[in-house]
């Protein structure tokens, strides 16, 4: 995995964490995704604004399968640790 890909994965993980952090945030993200995906208007302007991410990451997030988003805090921490280690090795 290249450094860029690892950084993308870390950013994606941040989005998953944000998504799982609060029920209302999840609801807002689902709503924005539904609206913006249906309108087929990448770069998902409102979603990017809300999640503070780039359009590329937002596009990646829309393609995640639902059960890959359902993560516990522990799973998120483990995944982050794994990616950080990979990043460290790559550098």
């Amino acid at each position, binding site marked *: 995995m290249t450094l860029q890909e690892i950084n993308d994965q870390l950013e994606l993980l941040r989005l998953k964490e944000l998504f799982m952090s609060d*029920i*209302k945030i*999840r*609801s*807002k993200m*689902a*709503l924005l*995704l*539904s*609206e913006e995906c*249906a309108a087929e208007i990448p770069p998902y302007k409102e979603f990017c604004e809300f999640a503070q991410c780039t359009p590329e990451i937002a596009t990646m997030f829309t393609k995640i399968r*639902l*059960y890959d*988003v*359902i993560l516990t805090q522990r799973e998120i921490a483990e995944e982050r640790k794994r990616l950080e280690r990979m990043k460290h090795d790559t550098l």
Partner: protein
Amino acid sequence: MKTGIDTLDCMWGSLESGNLYCIGCTARVKRIKFIANIAVGLLTKQSGLALISLDYNRTEMTDALRESYRTSSAATAGKLSLWLEHQPITAYSLIQDTLQRIVYRDKKILQVLLVDNLIKIRTDFHCSSQGMCVAANLYLLKMIAKEYKIPVIAFTELYPDKALLQPIADSEYIDKMIIFHSGQERVPKPVRADANIFSDGVKLPEIPFEIYVGKESIKYV
């Protein structure tokens, strides 16, 4: 896990954890009886069930459940745990609150979740159209099914309105769907050519029709 209703069981087979099922009923189909019969049918198969109703209040729902229970074979079942909640204004966050309360009280009650009425569930934030609101809620209901590892059955009234039907018919989050309508009512054909969506292509019961709970049948008039 089966619903105990032949029509549904034949089409859906067993209800699976993590799956979202949708039952659409047009205006001439008495949805409350449907909900009650499915609730009672499910309760004969396993110990717990949560039912969140938006359109029907507690008394209406209890009466329908009682009637359904009286005419079913459910009396032979063991302990029945039903969590019945009327939420005249509901949204994902409120449904989640209820589920957390159920889990806190007794996790065993939450074996399956029935939610009515999908198209009236609000979003926690302003939504530009009702169709998008439905799409977002379908995503979130599917999340509930995955998170709690239970089957979720969403009931919805259906208008012959393509703008509303389309997000339901096109949703990738619904695993199986069935639409009940009377012969006189025209229902727009779902756009998505998915084998899980049953509509005009399937011979559906017409009003008056019978659905079966246990060994007895109930005639709808």
